[in-house]
């Protein structure tokens, strides 16, 4: 049963799930780096993105490429609105106020979705061109797996370049390190924070689409645990570190799938618990995460 093919197959499944976590973690780590906010609203964007694509791609049959741009735009817009309406007013106040607000937004969206789309899960009928099956001697996969891996690598690469090379990216890193000094460099802090929310939320909505297309089922509460796990990926990789978020995401995805695949079946129910066990282990060995820098205490 534990053949090489099985191992490869499960590894691939793990990587696909890991890519989804990694994309979520990217947006979260940037927001956390700047605002010290565990953005639970990120989870709400997963749900919203999933249902948004469900309605336009599955119900209305809008072409895939257009759907991708629409869902990114939709997520980004939601992020911008959330920032301007809710978060911006709380800046300068205690950090916990932001946390409560993001949790409140998540709760609101979850209940709103429960009311609007029903508490029953929806079957996400992925268009057939995304479910074409390929068989090789070792691996069996569908177009959607390739799509997720390819899109994730492309997005992560672009994001890396954005953070490293662009003026906005450098400003984000500067703000994450020292907000006050960044402001006297002439950086418009609010604008940069909005960009961080727009990017993160666009990615979160996009992963909602990936999730639906890959696992074929979406529900009003799908964003919560996924969002929390993405935050675990952030912490495992090293808070505030962009490469760390990617590494953390993939590690988490692999661990979740491989542990279910190779541990005796009665362990499979502990799938989510294993994720958190990894978090605890990593934090015991490396308190600032795999690629994190040691945090100075901020007064």
């Amino acid at each position, binding site marked *: 049963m534990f053949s090489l093919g099985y191992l490869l197959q499960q590894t691939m499944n793990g990587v696909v799930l890991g890519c989804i976590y990694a994309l979520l973690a990217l947006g979260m780590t940037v927001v956390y780096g700047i605002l010290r906010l565990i953005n639970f609203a990120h989870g709400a964007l997963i749900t919203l993105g999933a249902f948004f694509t469900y309605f336009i791609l599955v119900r209305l049959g809008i072409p895939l490429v257009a759907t991708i741009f629409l869902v990114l735009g939709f997520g980004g817009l939601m992020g911008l609105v959330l920032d301007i309406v809710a978060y911006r007013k709380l800046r300068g106040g205690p950090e916990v106020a932001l946390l409560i607000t993001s949790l409140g937004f998540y709760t609101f969206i979850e209940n709103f979705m429960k009311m609007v789309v029903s508490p029953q899960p929806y079957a996400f009928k992925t268009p057939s061109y995304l479910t074409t099956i390929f068989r090789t001697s070792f691996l069996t996969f569908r177009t959607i797996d390739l799509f997720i891996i390819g899109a994730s690598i492309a997005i992560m690469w672009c994001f890396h370049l954005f953070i490293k090379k662009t003026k906005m990216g450098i400003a984000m890193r*500067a703000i994450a390190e020292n907000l006050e000094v960044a*402001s*006297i460099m*002439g*950086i418009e802090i609010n604008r940069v924070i909005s960009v961080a929310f727009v990017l993160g939320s666009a990615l979160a909505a996009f992963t909602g689409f990936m999730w639906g297309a890959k696992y074929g089922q979406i529900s009003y509460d799908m964003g919560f645990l996924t969002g929390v796990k993405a935050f675990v990926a952030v912490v495992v990789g090293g808070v505030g570190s962009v490469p760390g978020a990617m590494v953390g995401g993939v590690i988490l995805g692999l661990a979740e799938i491989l542990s279910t695949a190779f541990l005796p079946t009665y362990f499979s129910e502990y799938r989510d618990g294993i994720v958190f066990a990894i978090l605890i282990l990593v934090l015991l060995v490396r308190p600032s995460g795999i690629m994190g820098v040691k945090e100075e205490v901020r007064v």
Partner: protein
Amino acid sequence: MLKIENLTVKYGVIPAVHNANLEVREGQIVALLGANGAGKTTILKTIMGILKPAEGNIYYQGESINFFSPPQRVKMGITLVPEGRGIFNRLSVEENLFLGAYHRSDKEEVEKDLNRIYTLFPRLQERKEQIAGTLSGGEQQMLALGRGLMSRPLLILLDEPSLGLAPLLVRELYSFIANIRKEGVTILLVEQNATMALKVCDYVYLLETGVVKVQGIAEEVWSREDVKKVYLGG
């Protein structure tokens, strides 16, 4: 160029600066001296817009700037080189310099200024890819100054530039500050190290627990016996 009228700044209810009046004329080096906790940094931060005045007005080039944000003030030509250098430790030397010119859109001129800074401080060019946190104290101070100059300031606020530097470096730093002035930049200098500051500046304000106690032309203040005793350690 810069005029501060009846400025009071409070942390909570405790006033850090009380009813201060200051003026910096174009082309001058003005020194703001005083012991730790006298309110020097508070004044600089208020000029920059990081702190809000409880009372009083700040005029820059004849215009009240009380309600302007820090980035707006940077665009108007005010730059603060913060205390303890305030460089971005996790960013490279070149990224730090580049951030100094963040508000500028004249790319070619920024490039020119970058080269000018590298000519002034060859050490920075040698280390431009290096993470700023790994520089020595003197190099970090050069970087902070270079970054300040990258914004092409009309008025530069220097907060304790000699803090933690070896005496030889301090002398070098001050000849550099004198050079900046020759290029037409007005300087407001905050120092605990009064001896050095008094040698280069035109006008002096002595601050004590948030109140301006003595002011005057540098030479005059320098020669006053009572001032020497209290502020300059004999």
